[in-house]
C-alpha cells in the first residue's frame, strides 16, 4: 500500500491543479466566503491558464539558457586551459549566491525597463549559480580510476568529455537544475512586481485589493506547481543516478 500512495497523491494534486486552472469557475463557491463586499472570488483580470503558461515559459526559457551557459562555463574552467579561473569562479559563485533574487530583479529594471525582460535576466543570472556549482562539483570529483581507464582506452579529450565526464556528472548537474528551477519559479512570481505576466499577479492583486480569495488561489497554484515540478525533477534525477550507477559498475 505504501508504494502507490505517494504516486496517487501526486496524481490527485496534478489533476486538481489542471482542473483549477482550466475551469476555475467550478471552485467559486469554495472561495466565495473569503471575499468581502461582493468582490470576485476568481481572478478576473486575465485567465489563470494563460498566466500559468506564461509563468512556466519564463522559467523554462531562463533555465535552458542558464543550463547551457553554466555547464559550458563549468566545462571551460575544468579544462587545463581554463584552470586559472577555477579558484576565482568558486569564490564568485559563493559571493553571487548571497545576492537576494529580489535585488537582482529590481536592479535589472534600470538596464532593460519593465516587463518580462528584467525577470528573464534575473532568473537567468540567479539560475546560473546552482547549476554551475553542481556542474563544477561533479566534474572535479569524478572517480580517478574511471578517468584513467578512459585515457588508457585512447579516448581524446572531447570523447572523454562527451562519453565519460558529462554522463557521469549528469545526476549532480540535474540536481543543480532542480534547485535552479525552484528558485526561478519563486523569483518569477515576484517578477510580477516589475510587470512581468506571471502568477504573482494574482497574489499581488489580492494583496492590493485585500481579496484573500485571490491571494489563496495564486498561492496554491504556485505552491502546487513548485512542489510537482520539484518532485518530477527529483524522479528524473534518481533515474539518471540509477542508470549511471549501473553503467559504471
Amino acid at each position: 500500500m505504501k508504494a502507490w500512495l505517494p504516486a496517487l497523491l501526486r496524481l490527485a494534486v496534478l489533476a486538481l491543479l489542471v482542473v483549477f486552472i482550466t475551469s476555475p469557475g467550478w471552485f467559486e463557491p469554495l472561495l466565495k466566503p473569503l471575499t468581502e463586499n461582493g468582490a470576485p472570488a476568481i481572478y478576473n483580470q486575465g485567465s489563470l491558464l494563460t498566466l500559468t503558461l506564461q509563468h512556466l515559459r519564463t522559467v523554462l526559457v531562463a533555465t535552458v539558457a542558464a543550463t547551457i551557459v553554466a555547464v559550458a562555463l563549468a566545462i571551460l574552467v575544468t579544462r587545463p586551459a581554463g584552470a586559472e579561473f577555477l579558484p576565482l569562479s568558486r569564490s564568485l559563485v559563493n559571493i553571487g549566491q548571497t545576492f537576494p533574487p529580489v535585488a537582482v530583479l529590481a536592479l535589472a529594471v534600470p538596464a532593460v525597463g519593465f516587463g518580462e525582460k528584467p525577470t528573464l535576466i534575473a532568473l537567468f543570472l540567479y539560475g546560473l549559480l546552482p547549476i554551475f556549482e553542481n556542474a563544477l562539483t561533479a566534474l572535479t570529483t569524478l572517480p580517478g580510476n574511471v578517468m584513467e581507464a578512459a585515457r588508457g582506452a585512447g579516448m581524446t579529450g572531447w570523447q572523454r568529455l562527451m562519453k565519460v565526464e558529462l554522463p557521469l556528472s549528469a545526476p549532480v548537474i540535474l540536481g543543480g537544475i532542480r534547485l535552479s528551477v525552484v528558485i526561478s519559479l519563486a523569483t518569477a512570481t515576484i517578477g510580477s512586481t516589475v510587470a512581468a505576466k506571471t502568477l504573482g499577479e494574482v497574489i499581488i492583486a489580492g494583496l492590493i485589493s485585500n481579496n484573500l480569495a485571490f491571494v489563496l488561489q495564486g498561492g496554491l497554484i504556485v505552491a502546487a506547481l513548485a512542489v510537482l515540478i520539484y518532485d518530477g525533477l527529483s524522479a528524473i534525477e534518481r533515474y539518471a543516478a540509477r542508470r549511471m550507477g549501473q553503467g559504471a559498475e
Partner: protein
Amino acid sequence: MTLRFDKLGIVIAAIVAYAALFAPFATFRANRIVPGQARSILEALPPTLGMLLLAIVIVGGIIALLKTPLIIRLAASIVALVALAILIGVAGAFLTPDGNTFARIAPASGFWLLIFAFTLLLADVLTRLNLSPWSRVGVLMIAALAIAALLVSGLWDSLSILKEYASRADSFWAEASKHVTLALGSLVGAVIVGIPLGILCHRVETLRAGVLNVLNIIQTIPSIALFGLLIAPLGWVALHVPGAAAIGIRGIGTAPAFVALFLYSLLPVVANTVVGLAGVPRAANDAARGMGMTDRQRLLDVEFPLAFPVILTGIRIVLVQNIGLATIAALIGGGGFGVFVFQGVGQTAMDLVLLGALPTVALAFAAAIILDAVIEMTATKRRVETA
C-alpha cells in the same frame, strides 16, 4: 624579456578599457525621475582629478593584464577601488549646480563596471592568498570601516542614493531594524525548534523521512505564495484565539513573514543536525558508551560537539537565505529593506531601489563571510583535537 599575460587579467583589462573609455561614469538628472544624461570620467571630474583617475584605472588594468606578483595586484586593486570610491563623491559635488537641490547625480554603468573589474581582481588575489578565517574577517572589517568612514565624512552626500536616504533617514533605520529582527529572530526560532527536532529525527528513524519530506515541500513553496497562504490562518488565529492579537499576531504584517521565514529556516537546520549526528564516528560513540556515559552526556559531550560544524553550515545557509527573503516581507506589510526596493520599483526611482538592495546585499555578504570563517575555525579546531 617576453611579456606574459594573465588569462583573468585579459578579461579584467577588457572590462576596464570599455568602462573607462566608452561607458558613462556618472549620470546627471535634473530631478529624481527624469531620464539622465551620461557623463564620462573627464566630464564628471575636475581635469586634473579626471586624468588622475584615468591613469590609475589604466595602470591598474595593465597590472591585471600582465603576470605580476600578487602583492602588486593587491595594491593595484585597492588603490583603484579607493580612488573610485572617493572620486565618485567628488564627481557628485562637481556635477551638482550650486544651490540646486533637485539635481540627482548617480554612479553610471562605467563606474559600476570599474568597481566590478577591480573587485574581481581583488577577489582573485584574496582567493590565491588563501587567507586564514581570522584575516578574512579582518579584511571584511577594514572594508566595512572604510565604507562607514566615507559615509560619515559626507563625501558621498551629493550622490543620489544618499539624497534618497537623507529624505527618509528615520524610516531607513526603522526598516533596517525590522529587517534584521525578521532575519535573526526567525533564525533563533528555527535553531531552538530545529536542533531538538533534528536530534529526535536522528534517534527515531521512523520520524526522519516524514519530517524531512514535509520540510522539503515547505522549502519548495515560493516565498510570496507561502506568505500569502499564511495570511488566512493567522488572520483566523488573531480573531479567535484570545490574546493572540495583543501580542502582534495578525493576518498581514510581520507575523506571516516571521512564520514563513521560520518555516523556511527549519529544513537546513533539521537536515544538517541529522547529517551532522549521522556523521559522528561509531568509534567515538562506542568509546563514550564504554566510559559509562549516559545517553544525555554522550549527546552533549560527544555527539553534539562533533556535529557542530555541520549544524553551523545549516545556520549559515539559513541566515543568508533569510536576509534575502526578508525583502519580500515588504509585499505583505512586514517591513524591512524590501519597502524601499518595492517603493522604488513603483516610482521607477532606481536610487530608491538601490537604497533597499545595497544594504541587503551587504548584510548577506557579511553574514556569509563571518559564518564561513566561524565554520572553518570550528572544523579545524575539531580536527586538531581529534588528531
